């Protein structure tokens, strides 16, 4: 708003000078109740298949949606978490005295203050704040509650942590080797393993016209929601805590929070606000036990919102995969057998790796009829950011591998990629890799519909398609 002004100043300098000095006005308040002109689709029956606008569309459009960062309770404090910054180390000591002495700092906690310092959806291998051992650089080691966000941030610099470094394991293939010491000893680094076995792959390869091999890799990515993780806790005098949270799954979140705090579930209330993006990244507790403990210690409401770097370093990410594919086909392009090995980089903690492992393994064959299959998947610990649930749970990774190989095979056999897919696609009643009889199967329909719309058979998108001008 201020940036747009200069042109006006030149014309009406004196008149606007005073106005310019004023702070920018907040978004104009909308008088409530709002006279809502309800869009027609919301008033139609039958309701299903209507293009009904969302019930939160108006508040979003007016900028009136209240996220946790918009919430302020009287006397509220701001919390910040000290991050380890080293990927693998033993914690020798944490000295919080200097931070505690800072004006404006109300309380400091460390990993040792967490009543039950483990959680996780399947393996409980993750601490709320690291106490003995740091497993990745984004681990929290202490937290501060202060009267302003700035003081809390500055106080983190006054917390002195002494580490005894341990050689980090960063390569998932190295972690897969049995001689590599277990990060979470005595547990081995391979913490999840899955096999899908059907038919006889060796026999299928022997009968194949050609056997294709390929190796594919994917990277680690973040969910990058617009709204970072945030939570706000406040206790009532009866010893009951209410936590506003960006969690996407409050039922299981409450179980984890009550367990880590050592408080019965009846004394924990979780309210999830409208969340500004999840994509699988907000399926686990992060700051909730920290704000609850700081609030209990100070007797004041405490809020903590992740910074953008914390969102990258201290929340879950997508599993990088190393995928080896071996596929036997007939001369006509029918897939006879497929052998797959997947290695998932599980990062520092298990999180949702078991689900990702299972889905990746089952889906890795692709939406194709394959009678002979051997798919094996491993997930291993490394000293990197933990990987967990993310939109697709391993599916985008394996799809990249099986569809890349599909095109390579089609090209080598001289078959159109669309035809090769149609020839192998699952059909109504087909058996899945786990021998589940499938219903409402529409792979072929989706292939044909997309091809029709794209103009695949007219040569759209291909080099000659653009040359002869058939593109729409």
């Amino acid at each position, binding site marked *: 708003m201020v940036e747009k002004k200069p042109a006006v100043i030149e014309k009406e300098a004196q008149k606007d000078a005073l106005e310019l000095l004023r702070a920018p006005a907040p978004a104009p308040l909308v008088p409530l109740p709002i006279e809502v002109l*309800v869009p027609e689709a*919301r*008033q139609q*029956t*039958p*309701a*299903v*298949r*209507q293009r*009904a*606008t*969302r019930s*939160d569309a108006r508040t979003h459009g007016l900028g009136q949606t209240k996220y946790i960062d918009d919430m302020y309770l009287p006397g509220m404090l701001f919390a910040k978490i000290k991050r380890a910054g080293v*990927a*693998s180390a033993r914690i020798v000591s944490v000295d919080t005295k200097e931070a505690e002495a800072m004006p404006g700092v109300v309380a400091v906690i460390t990993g040792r203050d967490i009543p039950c310092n483990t959680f996780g959806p399947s393996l409980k291998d993750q601490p709320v704040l690291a106490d003995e051992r740091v497993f990745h650089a984004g681990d929290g080691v202490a937290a501060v509650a202060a009267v302003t966000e700035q003081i809390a941030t500055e106080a983190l610099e006054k917390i002195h942590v002494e580490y005894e470094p341990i050689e980090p394991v*960063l390569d998932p293939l190295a972690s897969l080797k049995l001689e590599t010491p277990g990060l979470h000893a005595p547990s081995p680094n391979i913490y999840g393993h899955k096999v899908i076995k059907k038919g006889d792959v060796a026999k299928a390869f022997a009968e194949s016209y050609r056997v294709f091999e*390929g190796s594919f890799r*994917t*990277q*680690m990515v973040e969910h990058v929601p617009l709204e970072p993780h945030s939570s706000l806790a406040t206790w009532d005098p009866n010893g009951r805590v209410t936590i506003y949270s960006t969690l996407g*799954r409050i*039922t299981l979140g409450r179980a984890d929070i009550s367990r880590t705090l050592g408080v019965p579930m009846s004394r924990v*209330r*979780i309210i*999830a*606000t409208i*969340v*500004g*993006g*999840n994509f699988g990244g*907000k399926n686990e507790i992060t700051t909730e036990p920290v704000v609850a403990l700081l609030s209990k210690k100070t007797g004041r409401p405490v809020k903590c919102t992740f910074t*953008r770097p914390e969102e*990258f370093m201290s929340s879950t990410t997508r599993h990088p995969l190393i995928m080896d594919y071996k596929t036997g086909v007939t001369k006509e392009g029918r897939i006879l057998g497929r052998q797959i090995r997947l290695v998932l980089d599980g990062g520092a903690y298990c999180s949702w790796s078991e*689900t990702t492992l*299972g889905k990746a393994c*089952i889906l890795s064959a*692709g939406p194709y009829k394959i009678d002979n299959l051997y798919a094996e998947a491993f997930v291993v610990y490394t000293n990197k950011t933990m990987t967990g*649930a993310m*939109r*697709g*749970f391993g599916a985008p990774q394996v*799809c*990249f591998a099986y*569809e890349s190989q599909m*095109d390579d095979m089609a090209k080598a056999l001289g078959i159109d990629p669309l035809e090769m897919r149609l020839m192998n696609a699952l059909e109504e009643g087909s058996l899945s890799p786990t021998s589940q009889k*499938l219903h*409402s199967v529409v*792979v072929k*329909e*989706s*292939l044909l*519909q*997309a*091809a029709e*719309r794209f103009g*695949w058979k007219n040569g*759209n*998108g291909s*080099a000659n*398609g653009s040359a002869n001008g058939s593109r729409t």
Partner: protein
Amino acid sequence: MKKRGRGIACMWYPIGFTVAANPSAAVVKINEDGTATLLTGTVETGQGSLTILAQIVAQELGIATDDVHVVSADTDTTPMDTGAIASRTTYVTGNAARLAAEKAKQILFEVAAPVLGVKPSQLEVADHKIQVVGFPQRNMHIGDVSDRARGVNGQPPIGSASYNPATVALDAETGQGKPFATYVYATQIAEVDVDDETGEVDVLRIVASHDCGTPINPMLVEGQVEGGISMGVGFALEEEIMFDEHGRQRNPNLTNYIMPTSLDMPKIEVDIVDSYDPTGPFGAKGVGEPTCVSTAAAILNAIHDAVGVRVTSLPATAEKVHAAIKAKRAQEARQITAGAA
């Protein structure tokens, strides 16, 4: 020089997850004026799920989307839900909401039946009315029935239900079994330009044909597909968390972690494939996650089509594509030299 290419990729994706039971519960209260309130433990995380649930309840009760108010995501007031995860909300929570609405509706049928002189099983709902099957002119307004349920019969219409998809545990050795109740299917086709001198990839157009069972709200399906594709474009070409040799992230910020903006988005054409799943609420399955699954594969196949190089690791950054083109040319040159010799 810019080279054009096209790539196709299809996929399948399950609705729900494997590790444990996957239940949702719901409560539906019909108010005295025939509007309704749904209590659900799921969370609106931006995908529009609360609107979908309102439409499902409205459909079951024969009322409009706007007539259903949804209260969500409070452990004190809303029933158990496994949460906004694994593309399960429309299918699992939707089934629970529909069943809860059906139970509340049954109370209205019992109240209306003697007034209309029929059995409850002879009644149906349509456009804010409870009417006799085959005789739509014999009807009562849903609000009148609901008010009568409270004021005359003393039985306020409320229903609660839960749903857990039927699955069969996998065999530990062979992995055989029924891990998911249902699956969705989709195809995406990408059209790209690849600059063979710089390796830069420009995604021009993506056609996406997605199955989601019955689209409860086609507009929200389109929104999911467009969002999923933007995530897929980033996964294919740009996004990557990088680590230094000590295991620390090198780019934990939006300056150095490159993700697509609106200007990087291709032209997207969404098609909803006609499909009906008898196990889903009104035939619906789900759509959230599957939308981002085949995008990267389609783009990488289009790069292969355009310049003849197979990039086997994501993301296919300009540097990586350029290096692959250079390597291919060097190899071709060697073959020519070898052929000449």
